[in-house]
């Protein structure tokens, strides 16, 4: 498989604040790749550099063998870009927006209808509605159609699911999977760690640095400690007591469980159980579990501090 996106030592600062620090990253042709990190990690800066909208301070990046600085015009023809902020024309209708984007790229809706059909059928009842009057979910679908109408080789999607409810998020990822089947290379950024498992490979990014790049399974396999899920009747008290345990390495709430790692290497489930019993807990449970991407992200944050 060929490398489609190749990023070498890219750095970018804004008035002294370092947004990206010597970032290296490769995305393969036809891959569904996730760029995962919180707000302020540098996701948007990196995507804007790839989209030829922002110049890096140093380093190089290539998309489909083209340099993002020197060959920006060629890249723009092959690129579909969906920015984080809705940026279609609010005072044009759904249909007019789509026609505008098709025309700008020298094509027609009919020519590439097959690519957007599954998404566009949901929009068609609102063809004559102004884009500004659409609901959030519909705006997002329209933005995706407009970014696709020239049948790009590569799609850059900047936080397409931020602020979107869990159901709509799942649907959106299904659409992305469909596009991947069409052979399009997709780079998607997201602050939701649970979306990592929907990607083939991901890069975890924090404070302008890539913490790790691998398949989701590859990342969770490299978690450096035994992880336990602890829960009981009073999780608030459990949390306090676990934090006070002298061997505790990390203690974090995870929904109905508390995730715990210990400084000792061996299996300590029994010792932990006993400690908690001595603290007055009765119906608590301690179970070894497989780490999630979020566990790994927090562990990597700790290491890079």
């Amino acid at each position, binding site marked *: 498989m060929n490398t489609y996106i190749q990023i070498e030592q890219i750095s970018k600062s804004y008035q002294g604040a370092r947004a990206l620090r010597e970032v290296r990253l490769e995305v393969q042709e036809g891959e569904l790749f996730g760029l995962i*990190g*919180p*707000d*302020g*990690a540098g996701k948007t800066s990196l995507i804007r550099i790839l989209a030829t909208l922002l110049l890096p301070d140093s380093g190089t990046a290539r998309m489909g063998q083209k340099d993002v600085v020197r060959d920006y015009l060629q890249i723009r023809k092959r690129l579909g870009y969906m920015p984080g902020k809705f940026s279609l024309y609010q005072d044009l209708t759904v249909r007019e927006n789509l026609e505008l984007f098709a025309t700008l790229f020298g094509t027609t809706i009919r020519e590439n209808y097959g690519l957007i059909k599954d998404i566009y059928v949901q929009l068609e009842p609102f063809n004559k509605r102004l884009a500004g009057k659409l*609901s*959030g*979910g519909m705006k997002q679908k329209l933005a995706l159609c407009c970014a696709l109408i020239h049948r790009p080789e590569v799609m850059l999607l900047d936080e397409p699911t*931020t*602020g*979107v*409810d*869990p*159901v*709509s*998020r*799942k649907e959106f990822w299904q659409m992305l999977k469909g596009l991947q089947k069409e052979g399009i290379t997709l780079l998607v950024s997201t*602050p*939701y*760690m649970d979306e990592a498992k929907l990607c083939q490979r991901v890069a975890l990014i*924090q404070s302008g640095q890539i913490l790790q790049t691998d398949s989701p399974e590859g990342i969770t396999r490299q978690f450096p400690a035994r992880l336990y899920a602890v829960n009981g009747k009073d999780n*608030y008290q459990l949390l306090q007591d676990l934090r006070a345990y002298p061997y505790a390495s990390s203690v*974090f*709430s*995870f*929904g*109905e469980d508390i995730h715990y790692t210990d400084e000792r290497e061996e299996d300590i489930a029994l010792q932990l159980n006993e400690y908690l019993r001595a603290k007055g807990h009765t119906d608590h449970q301690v179970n070894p579990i497989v780490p999630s991407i*979020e566990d790994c*992200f*927090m562990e990597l*944050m700790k290491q890079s501090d």
Partner: protein
Amino acid sequence: MSNTRPIIQAEQLTKVFGNFTAVNRISFEVSPGEIFGFLGANGAGKTTAMRMLTGLLSPSAGKATVAGFDIYKQTEKIKRHIGYMSQKFSLYDDLSIRENFRFYGGIYGLSTSMIRKQTDDMLEKMGLTSEKNTLLKALPLGWKQKLAFAIAMIHRPEIIFLDEPTGGVDPVTRRQFWDLITETAYQGTTIFVTTHYMDEAEYCHRISMMVDGKIKALDSPKSLKKQFDAGSMDEVFLKLARG
């Protein structure tokens, strides 16, 4: 909690925009000190309901009181007794931490000495005393979010509305933020919170799930999972929202 008066009481609360019913006769109660999760899909009517409860939007029908005040006639009183923070709630980037406290304290009509005391107390609690003259824009995002919470509490409201307070926040800060929420509720302040993170739904005492303008389910996370035969709140959400 059982023998105290509810701090929010909504009965058949409704909002109609033209021929669209955004909120359709919802009824619920929230007790003092409760962490109440207000969940639903985009467009389910959460924001409209919240805007009515915070005195920003007049209902079409139904009744509700917030902190004992009527949401039709006493909206100004409601605003004084509640705190509000959203993901987009913006402190002033070009003011220092201390100036932001002073500004919002002033808006709520607190005395200078009260503002100073609240500012000192809160900054000490957050370990930010040495940063009080730092401009907001120089702070990491996670700190800003915690400051926004502290400032939304400056007038010691009985109830605080948090609209997606942790969107985009890193996983460690997100958890520290929930520690703050849990502690605040423990001290008696009521928390009314929306979120798209389903693991956070587990930290709420009770959850209401809105679907198409109606409350489709309301119970503790544990009972909801049992009721819908689901392993996680994520599953409950999917089952409810997909119908």
